[in-house]
């Protein structure tokens, strides 16, 4: 397997609206390798969520290519894209992450169930992962019996349990207080590194980037800056 997990080549996404054409994503290219944790940052409206939707095969780019494990998403049928999301992508959303009528453990197991891979070992791994995220006493709680941070951590477990190639997280800390937010992103980063996933976290909170390996800055749909150097990244996180 090559080290490249995700490759984005000259992706453009335009939306037609009453006020004219919007270039939500404008000629963006980047590569994420296995075991790499990348932050996508930028002001509101800069195209982060649109980019993430394209990476998750939820949105088709106007032009350009996205390759996951070398497979071009544009060449897939809709059915194959659903399969890709199920097998190769892990996902956490800004809110409403969990299935409300499933417990924490069931929500995580559901990802394996979807892939037809839920067995005893899978259940055990789900519980271990939840424990790792500090939820060992919350396994049988329904989402409405958990705090926002706890729900986010369950969502992270669900995004990782089925060993996906790419893990995408849209504003996972938006509903958390700062302390919790640091903790969640830190554990997230550790798991991405350990399991050699390609992780992409979208955030507008620059303090969170201290845990990532690379920062992609977007503005008006364009990738305006890439930070690779750990020192530069830490400086950005401190607001310098």
């Amino acid at each position, binding site marked *: 397997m090559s080290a490249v997990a995700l490759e984005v080549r000259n992706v453009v996404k335009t939306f037609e609206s009453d006020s004219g054409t919007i270039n939500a994503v404008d000629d963006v290219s980047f590569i994420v390798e296995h075991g790499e944790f990348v932050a996508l940052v930028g002001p509101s409206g800069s195209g982060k*969520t649109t980019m*993430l*939707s394209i990476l*998750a095969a*939820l*949105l088709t780019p106007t032009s350009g290519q996205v390759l996951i494990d070398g497979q071009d998403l544009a060449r897939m049928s809709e*059915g194959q894209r*659903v*399969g*890709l*999301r*199920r*097998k190769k*992508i892990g*996902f956490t*959303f*800004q*809110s*409403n*992450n*969990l*299935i*409300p*009528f*499933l417990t924490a453990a*069931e929500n995580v197991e559901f*990802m394996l*169930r*979807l*892939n*037809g891979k839920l067995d005893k070992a899978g259940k055990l791994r789900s519980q271990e992962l939840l424990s790792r995220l500090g939820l060992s006493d919350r396994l049988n709680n*329904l989402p409405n019996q958990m705090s926002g941070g706890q729900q986010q951590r369950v969502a992270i477990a*669900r995004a990782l349990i089925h060993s996906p190639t790419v893990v995408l997280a*849209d504003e996972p800390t938006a509903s958390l207080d700062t302390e919790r937010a640091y903790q969640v992103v830190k554990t997230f980063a550790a798991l991405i590194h350990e399991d050699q996933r390609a992780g992409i976290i979208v955030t507008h909170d620059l303090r969170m980037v201290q845990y990532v390996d690379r920062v992609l800055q977007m503005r008006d749909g364009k990738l305006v800056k890439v930070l690779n150097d750990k020192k530069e990244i830490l400086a950005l996180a401190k607001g310098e």
Partner: protein
Amino acid sequence: MKNIFLSIYLALKEVWRNRGRFLLVSMVIALITLLVLFIAALGEGLGTNNREYISKVDAQLVVFLDKTDYIIGSSRLDDVTLRAVRRVDGVEDAGPLSTSSTAIVLPGDKVLKVSLLGVQAGRPGIPAVISGRSFLTDQAKEVIIDQRVAEQTSIKLGDVILIRSTQGTKDQFFELRVVGISSRQAYLFQPSIFVPAFVWERDRPKSAAEISNLTPAINVIFVKLKDPTQAKVMLQKIQQTVENVQVADIPTTISNIPGYSAQQGTVQTQGFFTLLIGVLVIGGFFQIQILQKVPQIGVLKAIGASNFVVGLASIIQIVFVTAVGVAIGGLLTYLFSLGFPPTVPLYFNGSSSALAIIALLAIGPAGGLVSVFYAVRIEPLKALRLL
């Protein structure tokens, strides 16, 4: 196959974790089921009490006086017509029916109102006798009672019963020996007693002008055909050969019993509207539920659940909730029906109940269809864009 299990898992987990809410919907369906089954049973009961004798008669055609609109009570025929009908080629036999009503005097000054039906021994129109015997002559003062009469009174085979009819201005009493008990033969909402033609003329209620009358007045003639499959042809043939008559088959005769069609129509309309309410209740519930579930369905699709899984889960849920409701309703109906006396006209006839249950099971999918389409069309992007 894996997908079907996944749908079942999603559908039933959700029902179980929200069982209070879903049970409430099932209970509404159960009550609608109860109502629909009772309406069906009432329709069957009223219909049976009205037509039972006519629907059991051993004949294919009924001869009426012309221009009486197939109304038994309006038709008056005579012996000449009866003999003419019997002579028509293809007619196996024909028998007269004379209708009236009277009261059986019971112990303790009680009476049982009954239809008094005059028939000829051994001819079509005589009911099937389940115990005792039928008439041997048209003169004997004998009576065959309907099983319903036996059920509602203590009258037994061999008893002499007293009937009371008003003739002119006086109440007259007549004694009749019970020689046979027939199967249930309600007619015009009354149980029936059968007497030979001449006894009928003597015992029936009469106006002052009719008192001296001795020849039995015939209302209609039942015709039994040699070949029952030729009913249509024979109907025309009798109408053409016999003067001044109109002929109908049994279903036409029944639907022309005064009030019969209107009553059945009313009951069916009630049943239909109750089902419609069911469709709207279920439709409303699942539609509101699906609107609340948009984010959740978006997430399901975004993490890789197919439209098939999501749509099937919706269908399974609707069918399950409906089936549970219908089952509870069916059970309630059965328990209630055990407590009803035989005089209440509620008949849980197998085929009409089955039809009602099929219609009830269909209201779930009918009402929930819109929400299933809605669920399938929710975009997975909703998971990211909402809120």
